[in-house]
């Protein structure tokens, strides 16, 4: 140690509130942190207002001349229609319980990503235009003028919220910030402000039946390819029936299961399971998409895209519906489908044809989650599993936000995993189950132009994965959401290299000992099985 340099003051760190006024709506659309705007062709295809070419970086967003009236009328209508919306606008006391619960706040430090502060962006407009004090005293009563900059601010921040609802778990008033986000996005859609990554899949779903616009013959090709793959792996001829009238069960999955990886390995797992138990099922080339990007845009579009599931169930004459691994698909099915497109009184109470279990929890929707169905099979000892086939994997489980917080599906996926894998480790308690951290890419944010924002939002989840990687050597992150499967690999590659991503039914497919199968030498990814398992 020795003396160096001249004496100068130590850096003075002042812990104070941010410079400027939080009410200033101006935002910086920095590349990598926002989604591109929707294209006119997609808005036109869906009959939505103000189709035009624009981008968030444009100075002029080409809003309709009467945009302000449209927004305020839209707000008024929704305040009258949804009692919850008015309640959420009125009851927040800014206690701060939600402040450090949002993954985007924890990953970015942007104070407007504190859930109460994000809601305040619309609450201030509510106060100004819909409360007496705001009308009389304006900003003194916490009100703000509705300007084009506010529209841009709404777009920036409400397309950062992934509607994961983690904040609502901690809110003493039960304010559901996700619903506030849904309503603000719906308001923005009234003036043609929406994103390409949501509207293009929604338009294709509306026109063709699935997000990529895969026509029926390509859908069939894709499933036949899966059957070929399964023949190579198991030596068995596995049929995947399409549009078969009179089947007992309609199986609906997210389209990513048949065009993307690693989703595809989950599809292989489903089909092996159905073959092994002799399930009388069909898939539909029309209801070839369980995912519902309409839910990221507006209630009407969500309802319209969801309708095909019941329509196909009715047309094919099935008794009930089984749904695959997907996140927001299940949010819509579980929370909204019955009231939007029900009642499903043309369907029967779902009963497992193998175990006889009545799924009373699905009495209204008549739709059962694949993890509930499989866990029930395992519980009744109807499947022969060899978990040692998954021994190369040290597994953890990410509770996808919608199935966990949205529908309480916490135990069933874990039950399947613990029976299909020998090496399973939970992430810390404050980051799983109902407290799970979002992947940072849900609710339509999972596009590549928004990559930096996604990596910020996904950091708290990745941080917990890194913890179990360091503690237990975890090398596989499992989940039951198609968006997770699309975006968590990127998150892992960036934050926790060496951790792969898989669906729960991929693990099940690996472990499933099928009647008449050939000696299994590879897993569903074509990788060599664990040595002990392959020798057995």
């Amino acid at each position, binding site marked *: 140690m020795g003396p160096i340099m001249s004496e100068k003051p130590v*850096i003075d760190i002042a812990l104070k509130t941010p410079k400027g006024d939080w009410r200033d709506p101006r935002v910086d659309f920095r590349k990598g942190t926002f989604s591109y705007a929707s294209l006119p062709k997609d808005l036109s295809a869906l009959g939505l207002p103000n189709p035009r070419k624009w981008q968030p970086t444009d100075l002029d967003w080409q809003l309709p001349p009467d945009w302000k009236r449209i927004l305020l009328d839209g707000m008024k209508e929704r305040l009258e229609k949804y009692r919850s919306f008015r309640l959420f606008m009125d009851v927040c006391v800014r206690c701060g319980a939600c402040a450090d619960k949002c993954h985007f706040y924890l990953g970015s430090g942007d104070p407007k990503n504190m859930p109460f502060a994000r809601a305040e962006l619309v609450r201030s407009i509510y106060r100004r235009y819909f409360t007496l004090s705001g009308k009389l005293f304006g900003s003194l009563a916490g009100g703000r003028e509705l300007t084009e900059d506010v529209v841009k601010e709404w777009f920036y921040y409400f397309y950062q919220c992934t509607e994961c609802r983690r904040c609502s778990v901690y809110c003493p008033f039960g304010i559901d910030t996700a619903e506030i986000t849904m309503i603000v996005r719906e308001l923005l859609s009234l003036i043609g402000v929406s994103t390409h990554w949501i509207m293009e899949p929604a338009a294709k779903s509306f026109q063709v039946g699935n997000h990529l616009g895969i026509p029926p013959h390509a859908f069939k090709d894709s499933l036949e390819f899966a059957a070929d793959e399964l023949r190579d792996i198991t030596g068995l001829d596995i049929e995947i029936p399409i549009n078969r009238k009179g089947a007992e069960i309609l199986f609906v999955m997210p389209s990513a299961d048949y065009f*993307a990886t690693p989703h595809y390995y989950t599809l292989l797992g489903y089909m092996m399971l159905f073959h092994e138990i002799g399930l009388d099922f069909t898939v539909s080339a029309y209801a070839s998409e369980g995912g519902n990007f309409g839910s990221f845009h507006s209630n009407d579009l969500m309802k319209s895209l969801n309708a095909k599931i019941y329509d196909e169930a009715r047309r094919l004459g099935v008794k009930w519906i089984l749904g695959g691994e997907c996140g927001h698909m299940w949010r819509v099915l579980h929370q909204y489908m019955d009231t939007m497109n029900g009642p499903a009184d043309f369907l029967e109470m779902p009963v497992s044809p193998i175990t006889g279990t009545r799924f009373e929890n699905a009495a209204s929707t008549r739709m059962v989650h694949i993890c509930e169905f499989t866990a029930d099979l395992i519980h009744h000892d109807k499947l022969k599993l060899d978990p040692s086939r998954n021994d190369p994997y040290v597994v953890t489980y990410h509770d996808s936000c919608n199935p966990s917080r949205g529908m309480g599906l916490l135990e069933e996926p874990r039950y399947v995993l613990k029976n299909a894998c020998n090496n399973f480790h939970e992430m810390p308690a404050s980051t799983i189950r109902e407290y799970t951290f979002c992947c940072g890419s849900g609710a339509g944010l999972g596009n590549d132009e928004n990559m*930096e924002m996604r990596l910020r939002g996904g950091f708290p989840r990745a941080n917990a994965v890194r913890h179990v990687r360091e503690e237990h050597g975890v090398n596989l992150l499992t989940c039951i959401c198609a968006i997770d499967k*699309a975006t968590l690999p990127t998150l892992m590659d*960036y934050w926790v290299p060496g951790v792969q991503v898989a669906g729960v039914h991929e693990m099940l497919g690996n472990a499933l000992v099928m009647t008449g199968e050939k000696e299994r030498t590879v897993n569903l990814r074509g990788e060599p099985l664990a040595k002990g398992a392959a020798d057995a």
Partner: protein
Amino acid sequence: MSAPDTVLERWLAAAAEVYGGIFAEHTIGERDPFRNPIGHTLRVSLTVLVREFFGAMQPAAIDAAFADIMALRSIQALAVEQAVGFVFGLRGIARATPAMMPADAEARIDKLALSAFQQYLACRERLAELKLNEQLRAFGVARMRAAHNRGSVA
């Protein structure tokens, strides 16, 4: 408080300063790694860097610690000088407490700064790779089919 501990706390405060306001306070004060992943990452990595600053200056340890910090700061709403600038904050800390510092502190800070810039750039380059790989996975089944068909023809 020992010299390394003093430097660590002051350097952590300097690193958190860019966040401003209550988040800077949260970053420094909240010790739960899952309620404060940024602060946790900064504290763990800066602990390594301070150890190296007073110690052997091992390049691998320095690069790994900056890799974690720059993974964060390269994708946050920070200009390059904000993301990396805190490294030079060590100069001010050293000047304020010269008796505690290594004799060649200036040269050590320069080496740390170079590593920080290198890791920042590496993170930015990885973004392009991530985007490409994500697109490849999005059409993974089509690629598998194409590979399968090529194999059949061959």
